[in-house]
């Protein structure tokens, strides 16, 4: 079963002592902000073979190089709640990711969002890719020609990458 990825801030998902088992902090909802009652995710193959490409796609759109926190969970768990998941074009600088890996969940209720939070909390993997690795991944995707270097922010291009365009 494929996985869904959502960029998060890890401390919002820590299991704090006062939390009931499997419940997420209210602050986790900051990472599940909806727009037009939609929540955006990225598809990750079940063998995670495209995980780092997706991470690079998201990180390339940032102002500055930074670590990348993400949550990864089984798409089937979300489908079981009745949430409809559809493939839509992404708006990253990564061509392949935009074409194939972007997902939207439409017509979400507040209850659905809370369910997403609890699914991530109970069943999801929360992990971090450090800044140095993210820079390397973005550079790799640029060199493969799948990320367009022109729209990237200068601070990202210049971060220890004097040979960015080589």
């Amino acid at each position, binding site marked *: 079963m494929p996985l869904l990825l959502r960029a998060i*801030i890890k401390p*919002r998902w*820590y*299991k704090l002592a006062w939390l009931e088992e499997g419940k997420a902090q209210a602050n986790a909802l900051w990472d599940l902000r909806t727009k037009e009652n939609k929540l955006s995710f990225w598809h990750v193959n079940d063998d995670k073979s495209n995980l780092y490409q997706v991470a690079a796609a998201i990180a390339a759109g940032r102002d500055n190089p930074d*670590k990348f*926190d993400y949550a990864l969970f089984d798409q089937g768990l979300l489908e079981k709640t009745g949430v409809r998941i559809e493939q839509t074009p992404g708006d990253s600088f990564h061509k392949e990711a935009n074409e194939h890996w972007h997902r939207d969940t439409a017509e979400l209720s507040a209850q659905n969002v809370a369910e997403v939070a609890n699914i991530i909390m109970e069943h999801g993997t929360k992990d971090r890719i450090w*800044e*140095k690795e993210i820079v390397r991944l973005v550079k790799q995707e640029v060199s493969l020609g799948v990320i367009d270097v022109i729209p990237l922010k200068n601070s990202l291009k210049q971060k220890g990458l004097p040979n960015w365009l080589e």
Partner: protein
Amino acid sequence: MTERTTVNTDIKGTPPMLKAFFTDEFGKTKETEVGLVGNFIRWRVQDWLGTLSRFPTTPTYTPTAITVDMPEATSQDCYSGFPVVGKILSIYDAHNMVADVPTTKVPTRKPQVYRQAEASTVGDDYEQSSSTIMQRELTRYVLNTIDCLFESARELYFEDGMETDFSRELVSVVKKYGKLAMGEINYLITCGKVDEEVASEALRWLARVNDASTYGWRLWVLEKSLSSKSPVVRDGAALGLVSMADAHAIQYITKAIEQETIAELRYDLQGALRELEACLDAASATGNN
């Protein structure tokens, strides 16, 4: 008026004065964290709950902070100009080493505000007093700016790698006002006076400020914040320390790992330590080439 002793500290650029021991009018010893603002020492009224008011019927307003010049503060008799009276016994640095002690009994002083008024008719004193007033006004302005900056950031949504008005303004104020700004920022963060996500974001950006004059202050607040009550702040501190890539932080992160009770954060702290060591190894290898 005071004899400044050399502080034997292994923290390069660490702010030398962080903690002060006072006695109030009953002779009771009290301890508080203080901020060093240029040649001024500063502490908060709310740190002084229970301190006797010298003038119990005044004032009609409640000051939130007191700033007095260093010689005044370290003299035997310390008048703040506000109804809080005490005397500083000694001032300690981050390693509990004495950084400043009063050595000379100073004649009884009138409160600073009265001295300024009197000095206004005398040439040199007037210039000095004007300078002091300007310094205080500047201090008040900067502190107010920083307080408002942190307060207004409460409603912001922070994302990794994304700049905000808060981050831009924070970096700007630190570059512009240096230690004056850092004194207040350190106070707000280490005393838990600001929202934890804002504090965490601030720590991450403080680590990236390119300003040598505040390096020690920034390193100090990041290391200190590893022991914050808030896990969000502890994480932000660790991330900032990785950005600063200073070997001095290794001992603090190691200690934070030992003390961390949240498993996921302990894992992230271990990651931070690995990243920091890798950065230092890479820098060392580059330096050897």
